[in-house]
């Protein structure tokens, strides 16, 4: 592998299922750089899992190709998987095995580099390994799914909806694990339909819809392009007319004439120009609503 080659390189990947009229994937191209965390977002049925299943050679692409660490995902599938950790969307485990028996089985198929690392992961997730997996809750099964994907410290991690079923505390542990993996140089490809979790982990985001990669952007770009919302309490009546004259500004009058909620998209300077002429008692900026931005990209405004 050349040092500059992407960790994951998907080129015009197309998948047409037999008997289906429309392709599940249409010429999707993207690249994940070494050490990058890439969020792959889209609604259910958009093609996220199909892309991942092609990367893992569970599905045969009908066009295009995918390479992981420079190796072809179909022709060099076994070699590719030496460097890959995978977590399926709705992870299926062996219900009659205990967690420990299952992890031992997975380790027999792909040796663990540092047993100490695997033990630390088990401790961090407080995984229940002595009971049969079939008796565990969804969250506890998900933890075991995460452990099997990470325990051999792969260079590339492909994770389909990894936080599904985890409680908020365990989600934090998982976000920490993602950061640690990135710090040791791993590349992560994480599919999700939840933007707020993706923004906690990812450097860059790709949006997929109807089998097409609609757009890609860095998290910083996404935040910049998103609308900002402010709740302001003026000393006198809010300058609603002056604010309404501004471009890309939506003004909602508050409960009293002194209150207003203002939503600004793009350039903020004219907005602050109006505010400079008023006396302000309280000024609060709401958290940037990436969820809304995400829905906007899909052409479906929240309202």
């Amino acid at each position: 592998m050349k040092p500059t080659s992407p960790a994951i390189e998907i080129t015009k990947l197309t998948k047409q299922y037999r008997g289906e009229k429309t392709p599940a994937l249409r010429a999707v191209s993207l690249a994940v750089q070494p050490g990058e965390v890439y969020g792959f977002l889209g609604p259910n049925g958009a093609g996220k899992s199909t892309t991942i299943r092609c990367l893992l050679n569970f599905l045969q692409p009908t066009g295009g190709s995918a390479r992981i660490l420079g190796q072809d995902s179909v022709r060099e599938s076994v070699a590719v998987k030496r460097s890959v950790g995978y977590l399926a969307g709705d992870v299926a485990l062996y219900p009659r095995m205990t967690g420990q028996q299952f992890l031992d089985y997975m380790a027999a198929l792909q040796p663990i580099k540092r047993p100490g690392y695997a033990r630390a992961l088990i401790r961090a997730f407080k995984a229940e390994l002595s009971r049969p997996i079939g008796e565990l809750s969804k969250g506890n099964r998900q933890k075991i799914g995460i452990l099997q994907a990470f325990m051999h410290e792969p260079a590339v991690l492909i994770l389909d909806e990894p936080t599904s079923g985890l409680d908020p505390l365990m989600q934090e542990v998982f976000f920490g694990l993602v950061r640690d993996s990135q710090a040791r140089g791993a590349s992560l490809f994480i599919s999700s339909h939840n933007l707020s979790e993706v923004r906690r982990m990812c450097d860059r985001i790709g949006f997929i819809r109807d089998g097409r990669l609609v757009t890609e952007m860095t998290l910083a770009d996404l935040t910049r392009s998103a609308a900002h919302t402010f709740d302001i309490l003026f000393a006198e009546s809010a300058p609603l007319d002056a604010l309404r004259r501004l471009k890309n500004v939506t003004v909602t009058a508050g409960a009293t004439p002194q209150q207003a909620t203002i939503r600004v998209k793009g350039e903020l300077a004219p907005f602050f120009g109006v505010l400079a002429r008023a006396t302000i008692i309280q000024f609060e900026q709401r958290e940037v609503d990436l969820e809304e931005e995400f829905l906007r990209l899909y052409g479906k405004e929240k309202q």
Partner: protein
Amino acid sequence: MWAIVRSELRQRRWSLVWWSLGIAVFVGLDVLLYITVKDDAAQLNQALSHLPVALRALFSDGADLLSPTGFLSARIYYLLLPLLLTILSIGLGTSLIGKEEKQGTIELLLARPVSRTRLLIGKVIAGLAMIVCVGLVATVVAVVSVHPAGLAVSRRDIALTTLASVLLSTLFGAVAFLLCALGRPWRNAATGVAALVAFASYLIASLESLVDWLKWPATLSPYHYYHPNDLLGGASGGKVMLAYLLGIVVLGIAAWIGFRRRDLDAN
């Protein structure tokens, strides 16, 4: 690959224990039953000779149902042992790959550096080990009990007849395995089709001597070539067993070709 074999056998260890126990009890009791009937063999034979030929043909390939070979064939080797082994073998054929794919656990294995070929070979080895183990139990129990029961049949012939029975049953299991390896929709039909093939094969071969038009189709039936009465009497049966083995290998290769490159079902 060996990790897959070990894990598969470990998961099925209780099933193996119960199958072995069941087969041991079935073979042991049936052999020992001879002690109670051998003294009245002539009388019983006369009574049995009044049974319709078609009915007799369904239970044995021998004319004399109470000679040592005729008794073992009628009670164990012609119908019941192959039937039990076929149930085991079709069960294995449908679950080794099919169950993993249906449940989605196959992705866990193939996400590791394990090729589909190795996965398939590992599963086949585990399945064959199970059938061979149950076959060995049947052989050992029969070999140990025939002489105390007064059945003058050589140990070698018993071992070979059991082997033929194991191979015949495995052939039907291989049909199920192939269908599962081809994925949906074949997988859904695997048990039914394999059982139908086995039953039709048995029925056609059993009735061919009575129904003229079945003679030609019967030549396509693996059961047509299965003669435990002769095998127990010292016939070699090597070619037939080789043909069964070849059939199993061909079905196995077809399963590999079908499985190697196809899309896995989403769970």
